[in-house]
């Protein structure tokens, strides 16, 4: 105690000597006081709140339990209703299935009848088609034979005409060639004969020239000139 008193004394003395520290200490003390007061108040409020909350929780839990109970009741009723609905549904479904099966069987029977009828019709159609095809084949065969016969006939006729015309052309060509050859030979013969004739005349003229130059006197020559002049006068050449 003595020590505490001494310390307080020391501190009081120190604080009195330093006003700033004193003021600060006062402020700190006030602040601690205020803090403690606030803490206590909060503590009080928190305990009141907790109490209120507990009450509310209790009430809530009760409400919740009631709700669960009601829900379970509702659920039970719903399950009951569900079972009823399922039972009804099953009944309706089985009935519908039966109806459907009946209808389906009827439809299947109708379809089978229709298919059988269609098959019959199809077979008849196929048979008629085969018949028509055979008829068409026969007609085509006949037509084809006729056409081939006609074509052969035309071909034979054309070939015959072609051969005849070719023969005629060849003959006329040969005749022309022969004619040209004969003309050529004839021309050559004529030219050669003409040449021979000219040579004969030239030889005769030359011979006469040589002979008369020796045998014909100048007087005879001049007489022949006079004779020519007389003829020219008679023909009235010089007028």
């Amino acid at each position, binding site marked *: 105690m003595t020590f505490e008193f001494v310390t307080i004394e020391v501190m009081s003395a120190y604080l009195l000597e330093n006003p700033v520290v004193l003021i600060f200490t006062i402020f700190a003390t006030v602040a601690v006081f205020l803090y403690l007061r606030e803490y206590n108040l909060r503590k009080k409020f928190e305990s009141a709140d907790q109490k209120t909350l507990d009450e509310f929780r209790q009430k809530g839990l009760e409400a919740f339990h009631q709700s669960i109970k009601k829900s379970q009741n509702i659920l039970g009723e719903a399950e009951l209703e569900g079972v009823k609905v399922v039972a009804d549904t099953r009944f309706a479904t089985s009935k519908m299935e039966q109806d459907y099966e009946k209808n389906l069987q009827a439809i299947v029977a109708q379809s089978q009848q229709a298919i059988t009828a269609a098959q019959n019709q199809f077979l008849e159609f196929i048979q008629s088609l085969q018949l028509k095809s055979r008829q068409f084949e026969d007609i085509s065969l006949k037509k084809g034979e006729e056409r081939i016969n006609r074509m052969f006939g035309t071909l034979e006729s054309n070939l015959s005409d072609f051969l005849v015309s070719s023969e005629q052309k060849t003959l006329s060509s040969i005749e022309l060639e022969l004619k040209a050859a004969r003309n050529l030979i004839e021309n050559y013969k004529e030219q050669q004969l003409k040449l021979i004739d000219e040579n004969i*005349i030239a030889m005769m*003229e030359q011979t*006469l020239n040589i002979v008369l130059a020796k045998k014909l006197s*100048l007087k005879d020559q*001049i007489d022949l*000139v006079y004779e*020519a002049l007389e003829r020219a*006068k008679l023909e009235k*050449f*010089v007028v």
Partner: protein
Amino acid sequence: MDTLSILLQTTCSLLSLKYRLRILRSHFNQIFFSPAESEQLTPDDLAWLNSLPKPFLEQFNQNNLSQIMTDLENNISKLQVLILYLPFEVNDRIVEQIGQKTRIIFSQLLLLDIKYDPSLIAGCALVWKGILRDYSLKAKIEQEKAQILESFKKYLR
């Protein structure tokens, strides 16, 4: 009678006419322009000169000689000439003889231009105004060619 006619009366061929015209010019040139020189003429030329009539010779003088000669040459070039092809060669005498005979036959002063063509054999060919008429033996042979050849071919067979 004009100057050219006098010359034509004594000359029958174109060649002779041209030659004599040259003689005449030479003669008068000698007389008029160089009398001192003696003239070189053949006897035939001299005889021809002397045969010309005096009036013809007297018309020439120193002044008109050149003019008359030029006129004569021009007139000769315009004359119609009878061309005569002969198969033999002829001299002046024969030319003159044929010329005279021609003038007698045709009764006109024809001027001849005589040419030599031995291929004619005999006879003659005439050309008058650009037209040829052949009276030679060659032409006769040509005319009778077919008959001659026929007669030859008889022997060939």
